[in-house]
């Protein structure tokens, strides 16, 4: 049966051939335009991807939103105990605190990648419990202590400190922790002990950034014993009232607010008391740029940029950087008689 095609269209309705071809070309060019511009835009944004440090998730911690990530089910691990701590420490600053979202999304923690957003994105693989810390070297009571036990060694307190990064930005962070000096006193250094050396976890599975030799892993840091005994030096286990997020150095990190941020070693597994000055990671990587002391000093520039000013995260304008990050009254005495240009 022949299908009914209806009446033939009137000849006046037939599109002239040249117009028909032009319309086809118009559509073709339109599609090619759209595809090419999208391709150029996509290519550019892809090339810029590595630079996009600010795209980390604005809130939440790696530990909570990466459950079931490559590190295994985080929820299955023992929950860290809730923190109880005292507030209103006399050494806390009253300056506006940096929002939690910024504190947890803008980090230098090369064990999880070198971009600022990498730690927040990748630190879900770190398992901060169970965790032990080895205390050894020139001490009368060397030991390996579980983190949940160590947390109870001293009453926890909140300390709102300024944090000045060597990259000329700064934050104000409410840490929870206890003075390092409490730990030092407890393990009783011998008369030979003059320095304290700290070591970060070495585990390329938990810390994927360690698969590349960007730095000489594991990360190591150190303090002179009198610096470690200074009341401002803090061993932090939390921030903003909660256990440390992985990207901020869970479960235990050092906070020395008068020094550049890189001295604040994260995810500590070993504390060793020594007679000789211990090697420190950034100093090994670039000795002319990062000293052992690394005290915040606006008068001594980093070879590649000025340290005279800093941008407080959240501010538009830079502000002057203060000697010892504004803690000169408390700590300057530690360095009396020292040439701070030489011992930077």
């Amino acid at each position, binding site marked *: 049966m022949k299908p009914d095609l209806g009446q033939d269209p009137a000849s006046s309705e037939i599109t002239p051939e040249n117009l028909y071809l032009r319309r086809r070309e118009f559509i073709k060019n339109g599609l*090619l335009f759209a595809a090419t511009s999208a391709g150029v835009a996509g290519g550019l944004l892809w090339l810029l991807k590595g630079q996009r440090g600010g795209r980390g998730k604005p809130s939440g911690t790696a530990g909570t939103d990466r459950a079931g990530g490559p590190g295994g089910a985080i929820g299955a691990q023992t929950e860290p105990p809730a923190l109880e701590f005292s507030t209103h420490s006399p050494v806390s600053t009253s300056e506006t605190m940096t929002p939690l979202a910024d504190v947890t999304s803008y980090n230098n923690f090369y064990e999880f990648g070198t971009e600022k957003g990498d730690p927040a994105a990748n630190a879900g693989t770190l398992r901060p419990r169970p965790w032990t810390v080895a205390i050894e070297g020139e001490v009368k009571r060397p030991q390996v202590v579980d983190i949940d036990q160590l947390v109870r060694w001293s009453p926890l307190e909140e300390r709102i400190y300024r944090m000045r990064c060597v990259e000329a930005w700064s934050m104000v962070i409410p840490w929870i922790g206890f003075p390092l000096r409490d730990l030092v006193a407890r393990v009783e250094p011998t008369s030979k002990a003059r320095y304290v050396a700290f070591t970060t976890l070495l585990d390329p599975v938990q810390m994927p950034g360690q698969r590349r030799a960007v730095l000489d892993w594991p990360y190591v840091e150190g303090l002179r014993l009198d610096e470690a005994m200074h009341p401002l030096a803090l061993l932090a286990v939390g921030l903003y009232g909660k256990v440390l997020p992985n990207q901020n150095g869970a479960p235990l990190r050092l906070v020395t607010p008068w020094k550049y941020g890189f001295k604040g070693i994260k995810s500590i597994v070993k504390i060793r008391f020594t007679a000789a000055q211990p090697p420190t990671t950034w100093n090994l990587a670039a000795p002319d740029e990062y000293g052992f002391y690394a005290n915040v000093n606006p008068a001594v520039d980093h070879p590649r940029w000025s340290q005279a000013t800093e941008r407080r995260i959240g501010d538009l304008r830079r502000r002057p950087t203060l000697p010892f990050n504004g803690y000169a009254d408390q700590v300057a005495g530690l360095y009396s008689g020292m040439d701070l240009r030489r011992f930077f």
Partner: protein
Amino acid sequence: MGSAAPHDRRPWLKPAVFTGALAPLAVIVAEAALGRLGANPIAEALNRLGLTALIFLVAALACTPLRTLFGWTWPIRLRRMLGLFGFFYALLHLSTYVGLDQAFDAHAIFADITKRRFIYIGFAAFVTLIPLAVTSTAASVRRLGFVRWKRLHRLAYVAAALGVIHFGLRVKKDLREPILYGVVLGALLLARVGVQLRTRWLKQT
């Protein structure tokens, strides 16, 4: 089709590349407006604008080697636009540094440019681009004569190389990306020098 002008087989090419080239800027502006540039938005914008400038400079320098190696002629038509976008993003990068990062603090900027290799190399790259942008018109090619114009525009390699060094000096330790751009730039330069030497050698024999 009936017109006397030669038929443009790719009338969409230039407008499409132009539109796509604005994407990095559009994304920065949109994210800044939405507060999505992260904790340090000025540093973020600076980094992205600077890298975009470098990408365009390298892309502009790739046009001629693409013709000599693959016989493609269409990239040449994009070369001026790519170079000017490089200059445009470099200008935005510098303006962000001067205006937003340093808040027009002439003293601090002067100290930075004169004292710090990282900054003065970046500044030198920008200054090198100025005569190239100014003489980017067809009229300039006529006025200077093609040979002199061409010689002047070899400075594009200098500007891009300075850009790579500036990028390399910014990072603290992870040099992978600056090295990658340096390698691409070196390969492009090598391709050109190779072709030149070959032509010269062929002429002599």
